[in-house]
């Protein structure tokens, strides 16, 4: 039996399908974190919404970045189809990608992608605002259903690997960008400057990755910026950490190498270097050399990796 050939366009569409789904899911979690923080007494909610918009990479879409309201967030990050990173745009694009590679998907995966795809198009902002948590839950469920359908029904061939690759690249990127926006609250000197530990700030980062309870299972200790950063960057067990995502990225690339005559490309080197580095690093070294610098460097590595994948597989 010969391995079925995969069109480069199909590979690219699958890669982005998974990125869009992951982005919609992560954006929903970011907004959840924002609305949670906005409910805490004495806090300026516009500040929180600003960091949400920044982590989603959409700050420039708001007219007044310092006066962002919940309603503006709902409009821009959930419903605005002009914004390519909005949840609606991501889900619609994921479906459009799926539709243009129908033959590469199982029927079950297509049915999940196709299910309710016009829900957000038909929703008005007041309605979305009134039932914000319902809408966000629905979005997260979409993500789970789509990932579930692909895991449980797709053949383990290149199609599946490109889906996985896209998903983990986006996940690494989203976690790093969240850290970029929030890195100032994780700096140890905040203890002094802020006068007392800011639990809410720290837990907000965990909420944004849906991992408050998971964190406890792993650390059995109180919140500390050190542990939280360790959890999000270096944990090999937490499926949204940079280290976990990169290990999966490398695994996907190795599988592709197996079906592509053993060929390796620049992307393989980049991913392997990153995996090795994240394994060897200790949190102390990261804080010593600067958390923010580390996060920014990792974001640009991920961007480079993305373009190396394009090059390697003729996207």
């Amino acid at each position, binding site marked *: 039996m010969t391995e079925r*050939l*995969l*069109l*480069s*366009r*199909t*590979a690219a569409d699958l890669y982005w399908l998974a990125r869009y789904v992951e982005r919609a899911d992560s954006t929903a979690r970011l907004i959840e974190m924002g609305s949670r923080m906005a409910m805490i007494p004495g806090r300026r909610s516009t500040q929180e919404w600003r960091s949400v918009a920044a982590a989603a990479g959409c700050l420039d879409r708001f007219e007044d970045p310092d006066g962002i309201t919940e309603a503006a967030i709902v409009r821009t990050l959930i419903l605005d189809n002009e914004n390519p990173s909005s949840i609606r745009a991501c889900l619609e694009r994921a479906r*459009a990608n799926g*539709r*243009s590679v*129908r*033959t590469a998907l199982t*029927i079950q995966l*297509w*049915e999940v992608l*196709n*299910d309710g795809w*016009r829900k957000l198009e038909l929703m008005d902002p007041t309605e979305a605002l009134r039932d914000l948590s319902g809408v966000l839950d629905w979005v997260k469920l979409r993500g789970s259903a789509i990932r579930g359908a692909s895991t449980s029904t797709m053949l383990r061939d*290149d199609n599946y690997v*490109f889906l996985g690759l896209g998903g983990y690249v986006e996940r690494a990127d989203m976690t790093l960008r969240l850290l970029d926006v929030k890195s100032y609250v994780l700096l140890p000197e905040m203890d002094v400057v802020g006068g007392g530990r800011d639990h809410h700030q720290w837990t907000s980062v965990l909420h944004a990755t849906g991992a408050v309870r998971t964190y406890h299972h792993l650390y059995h200790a109180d919140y500390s910026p050190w542990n939280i950063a360790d959890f999000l960057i270096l944990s090999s067990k937490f499926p949204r950490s940079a280290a976990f995502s990169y290990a999966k990225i490398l695994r996907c690339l190795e599988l*592709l190498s197996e079906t*592509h*005559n053993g060929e390796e490309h620049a992307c393989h080197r980049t991913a392997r270097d990153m995996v090795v580095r994240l394994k060897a690093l200790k949190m102390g070294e990261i804080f010593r050399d600067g958390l923010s610098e580390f996060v920014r460097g990792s974001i640009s590595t991920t961007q480079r990796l993305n373009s190396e994948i394009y090059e390697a*597989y*003729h996207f």
Partner: protein
Amino acid sequence: MFDEMSGSGDAIRSPYARIADWIDAVGVERLQQRSAEAEAIFRRIGITFAVYGEGGDPERLIPFDLVPRVFSALEWQHLDRGIRQRARALNAFLYDVYHRGEIMKAGIVPEHLVYRNAAFVPAMVGVEPPGRVYSHIVGIDIVRTGESSFQVLEDNCRTPSGVSYMLENREIMMRMFPDLFAGGGVQPVDGYADELLRTLKEVAPPACKGEPNIVVLTPGSFNSAYYEHSFLADLMGVPLVEAGDLFVDEGRVWMRTTRGPSLVDVIYRRIDDDYIDPLAFRPESLLGVPGLFDVYRSGGVTLCSAPGAGVADDKAIYVFVPEMIRFYLGETPILENVPTWRCALGDECAHVLDNLEDVVVKEVHGSGGYGMLIGPKATAEERTAYAERIRKSPSEFIAQPTLDLSTVPSLGPDGVGPRHVDLRPYCLVGSQMRLVPGGLTRVALRQGSLVVNSSQGGGVKDTWVLAS
């Protein structure tokens, strides 16, 4: 009026015995419920046709009517012979058009209708397509007007669509009403994709050594028939490509894959001639594969259908198909044409203008049921305006008598009632001819309407050919 279930009287015709019992047993109310279920299935699977830029739902369903349309084995035998005969004649005509032009020289088909036809491709002159096949999938639209009278309404030699509905309609019926099919009384249609694949392999180009690599070429996911393109590619297990996935190098066609370039031998293209190759056809077009046509001409790849095949399915050429059958095959046509007046001819045009309230007038190059005048249903003003258009450019129009199309029981809001239908079977032409027993039945769901096109409120039905 001929109803396929009750004939012209009250007795149930034998092919419909099972359907009649079934309707009685299930009851109208239950049928209507199941009809909603069927619609939900179609929607979920995504069997839609895309209509972008018109507002409303961009991906629409073609209404599916649950009551099947039935042909006896004997009726089908007659249709089968007639369809194959016609598909052979049409391909012979295309070969003639692009070679010696004997039928024009013999004075049977007027030269200007062929050589000045927009679908005529001068660059195809002298090209020898594999197996001399131009139209590999011939869709022939057939209407019935009586117990034994079938007529051809139209030929489709380019890329007739709708076959996915033939297949899916059957799947849905078998899934929802397995009892109806118990005992194997209905001939299966699910071999279509395999037959199509065999046909495409048979027309591999001279340059192909070994097993041919086949692809389906689609304009993309915004095309109205995109579902069908992906469905057929999937059933055949071949790649579904867009023009951007292909390129020409060293006299062959290649597709871009994650492993680098890979050879392509046969392209089942679902795009129009104009968009195949910007170098050969439309220099201003960004679509298509530059250089593809040259590779085709030199035998490096096969295009199905061949460029220029459309010259055979023009409504002005249609009139001559019975003559083609006599001329090329020396046979008597098994399926006749609907009588047609060509407005290009003075006395025929005068007849049409005098009898506008009785005839159907169509644009020669029109399709999809748009731009027609249905005389008996039109108002006096509409007829006057249309007559003006005919007088202005008579050669753009043909007319046919208003046909009393047969009806088949269908599910309406007020229960089961007769609705007019037509039939499109799909004849495959490679080194052999293949015809799956069945086709797409289109139904005019509005009571009394004669227009079956999906763009005009038409629906579809499962089409049965009985085993005996």
